[in-house]
């Protein structure tokens, strides 16, 4: 379990990194925290000729607090969210999610943007940030910037909107009002392992926002518009039967245990959210 030989570049600036990205081929990989790429390299599932490390680029570790939004640099680490050293677009949720990712050693290096780009269906940020209505910002080697909504960024398991000459620069989150509520619940075999089922619900009456998302399905996180509406309107936890029927419509291929776990996760996260003050 040793990687194939590769060149390793550590640019000092974003501009330099973009220059490198322009010059190279398909076989180049960006490395952020290395916590997903590392295993892929060791298993030789990733076989890059060159790796460009962006972990140390200060431009990618910035936080921009605008009116109505916060923009987080891609290379901010899970541990930084966990420790509460960053501003929060919604009270406590990002800390809660970060804290539940893997083990501290992984959180010390793993980054929010790396997690999104890796797009493991069972990962936490892709589901949490979908529930939070995030937008991701990408820059291309030519210097073009484009923004896409999280719901369009993840195409499926390990597939994203990114082109090979593009880099994820930041994640932009809308700010929520103080009356916003959130719930995030996952089931795992073991503390620190990837989830078997994830559900999240975020709602902000002031913004007329409500979104239900299921994660750890076989592909991209699944948004349920009917359930989002139902919970917002009724303010009560939906029954398992209702949730399972919706999952039957959205993802009929999931096995019965998975559907059941997703239903339980949604019930528990809505209960959590509704008990929040």
């Amino acid at each position, binding site marked *: 379990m040793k990687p194939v*030989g590769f060149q390793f570049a550590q640019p000092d600036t974003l501009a330099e990194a973009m220059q490198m990205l322009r010059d190279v081929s398909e076989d180049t990989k960006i490395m952020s925290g290395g916590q997903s790429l590392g295993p892929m390299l060791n298993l*030789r599932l990733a076989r890059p000729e060159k790796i460009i490390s962006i972990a140390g680029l200060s431009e990618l570790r910035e936080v921009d607090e605008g009116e109505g939004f916060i923009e987080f640099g891609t290379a901010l680490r899970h541990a930084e969210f966990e420790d509460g050293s960053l501003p929060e677009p919604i009270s406590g949720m990002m800390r809660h999610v970060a804290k539940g990712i893997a083990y501290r050693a992984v959180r010390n290096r793993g980054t929010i943007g790396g997690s999104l780009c890796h797009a493991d269906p069972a990962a936490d940020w892709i589901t949490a940030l979908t529930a939070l209505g995030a937008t991701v910002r990408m820059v291309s080697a030519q210097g073009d910037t484009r923004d896409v909504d999280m719901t369009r960024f993840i195409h499926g398991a390990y597939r994203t909107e990114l082109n090979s000459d593009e880099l994820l620069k930041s994640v932009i989150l809308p700010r929520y009002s103080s009356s916003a509520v959130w719930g995030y619940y996952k089931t795992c075999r073991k503390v620190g392992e990837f989830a078997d089922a994830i559900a999240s619900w975020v709602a902000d009456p002031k913004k007329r926002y409500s979104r239900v998302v299921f994660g750890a399905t076989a592909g991209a996180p699944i948004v349920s518009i009917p359930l989002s509406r139902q919970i917002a309107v009724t303010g009560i936890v939906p029954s398992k039967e209702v949730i399972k029927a919706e999952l039957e419509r959205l993802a009929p291929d999931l096995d019965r245990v998975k559907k059941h776990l997703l239903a339980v996760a949604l019930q528990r996260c809505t209960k959590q959210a509704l008990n929040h003050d």
Partner: protein
Amino acid sequence: MGTGIGARVARKEDARLLSGQAKFVRDLKFPRLLEAAYVRSPLAHGRLKSVTIPEKYKDRVFTASNLSDVLPIRPESTLPGYKASQQYPLVKDKVRFVGECIAICVAPTRAEAEDIAEQVIVDIDPLPPLVNASDAKTRDAPRLHDDWDDNLFLTTAFDGDLEFAEKNATVVIEREYNTARQCMNPMEGKGTLSYWDDKAGQLVVYTSTQVPHLIRTGIAQYLQMDQGQVRVIAPDVGGGFGYKCVLQPEELSVSWVARKLKRPVRWVEDRREHLVAGANTRQHHYKLKAYADDRGKLLGIDAEITVDIGAYSVWPFTACLEAAQAGGNLPGPYALEGYRCKTYSVATNKPGFTPYRGVARPGVCFAMELTIDAIARAVGREPADVRRENLVPGSAMPYTNVTGKFYDSGDYQHSVTEAARAIGLEDFRKRQKEARTQGRFLGLGFGTFTEQSAHGTKVFAAWGLPLVPGYEQAMVKLTPSGSVEVRSGNHSFGQGLETTIAQVASEWLTVDIDKINVLMGDTGMTPYSTGAYASRGMVMAGGAVSKAAEELVKRIKIHASHLLQCDAKDVALKDGKALSGAASVDFADIARAWYLRPDQLDEDVDTAGLEVTQGYKPDIDTGVFTYATHAAIVEVDPETGKVSFEDYYVFEDCGRRVNPLILEGQTYGGAAQGIGTALFEEVLYDPSGQPLTSTLADYILPGPAELPHFRLEHSETPSPYTRHGIKGVGEGAAIAPGGAVLNAINDALEPLGVELNELPATPHKILSAIMDADRPEEVAG
């Protein structure tokens, strides 16, 4: 306080192990060292047609055709009907499991060796795979070994009398039980480094093993060398659990290449190799019929046990050990009159079965303990009571059971009484009822077992093994400076033997263990021992050290009597001094006189010297039996299938406790592994025999957050048959958790109509069972 037997002292070896100073195979440095990687079979079953090596790597890659002077590993057994398998260290004609070694590639670094391995092309004609034992057992199943007429390594039958049971039983319980295939996952996997030493004329093999002397014998045998030409050194070893008690094919191929190239060669197993090619243990199937009366008294058991052996028999323990142990130990601690048992050891396309901590007993204990609880439910009684009443009573000791096991001592029933008291049985039943009204599912389960330890010559001979353990030897000496040195051919690989045998020497010699140097693992420097397995280390190596130390004490006293001008029988030892009345001499003085200033000794001095090697065997050969009862309280979340522990209590009796601290560590570690067996660990295969659990993200091991806070208590019933009354204890705690935890889960889920008879009890299985039972109104509470 002294550091002798019974002292609760920290381990000598911890200073180096915990500060990164230990030297494992991976830490060794040699000039011109080559690292090895293997080309492994991508298929479970097939005929190897060709191996194509790129021209530029011809001298870097070796296959079976190069190793033509190496004999295939072919462990024989004297058991009637046993069929031997032949395993070439590199596949010669047929691949028989995914991950089997086909070619060895060497390069200055492991990464480069893997680069080469990727470029070697193997052409295999696929054959239908035998993925499970029940299919492989059928008449028309394809053959794994071409010269066999079926896929059975061995079938055994124990034909007891069930007539009384059949006639008088009012309750008959029929069940099938399954245990999963597992990997042992020592922190350090296998690892071997070999080089040819021209001066010594020896192949020197550093290898991560529990049994260095056996490996020396094995390497010499299969590489067709004289044992004098082989020196095996086990350096620091990061856990064994049985995984490293057998000859590894890699030890042969690495050694062959090292000898051929006259360069040091090393291979270190990585976790993926372990999880694929090391998936070699625990998988049993039981068909069991139990007869009982209306009080739940067991009258008889009729069992059929199938062990999924995998492709090959391991050397020296063979493919038969597991089933032989299973058939012999199924009745366990119970006083059972009627017993019939058939066992099948079935060849399948998986890595060859290797004995793992507890050997067979985690399986039989699981089957037996679930059966006891099923009987208790059937007769409507408290499982603890039914269990207790069925156990061999203390008053019957020593007791020979239905399979001829000689239980040397102990009070098994007392262990259940204690466990029930400590876990708060009566109070629990009240709490359980209350919790159910709140939609919470609590359950209590017990697991009781005996751990045959240090079983010796006769037992192993009866299992038909090619190599049988006998006398254990040890050397104890006084060094020229008066400190003590202990040499043992057994090995310490995390279980603390390095400290505990020093404690035995300390007991006799009155010297603190800090001043006792222990040398182990090097066949060039230690007396012969078959090594550490079968919970024999403490009993056997401890006994041998004790005997040698006793003799050394005699000699020290004689020498001291010269220096003290008194009679040897008037000399006493204390704190590393020899005393006679008010006069005393240090061991240093005694040693100096013998080694450096013999002129100070009388002419008629005893010339046997101050280095003593002795051989030891307990008074009985049949093993001494540790026993325990585990009790677990769990809560099952019926919505997520998650099991959490409220309490876990162990009552254990392992005879004289040499070091209570180390003993507790052994019990915690074993129980943790047992909980892995109970709830988490499972090697899965797809229908073509491809393993699906090849990383630790798929093969789940319990971590600290998944484990209960274990509570332990001990009683001490010394064995009448061993030195110091010691019994073995290394394996025990891994035996009971499967039974105790599943009983607890079944107790919790009874209102839902759920009974799980399969390990591990994963959330997926629990949820599926709840869904199948379909009592949603009960889940809602």
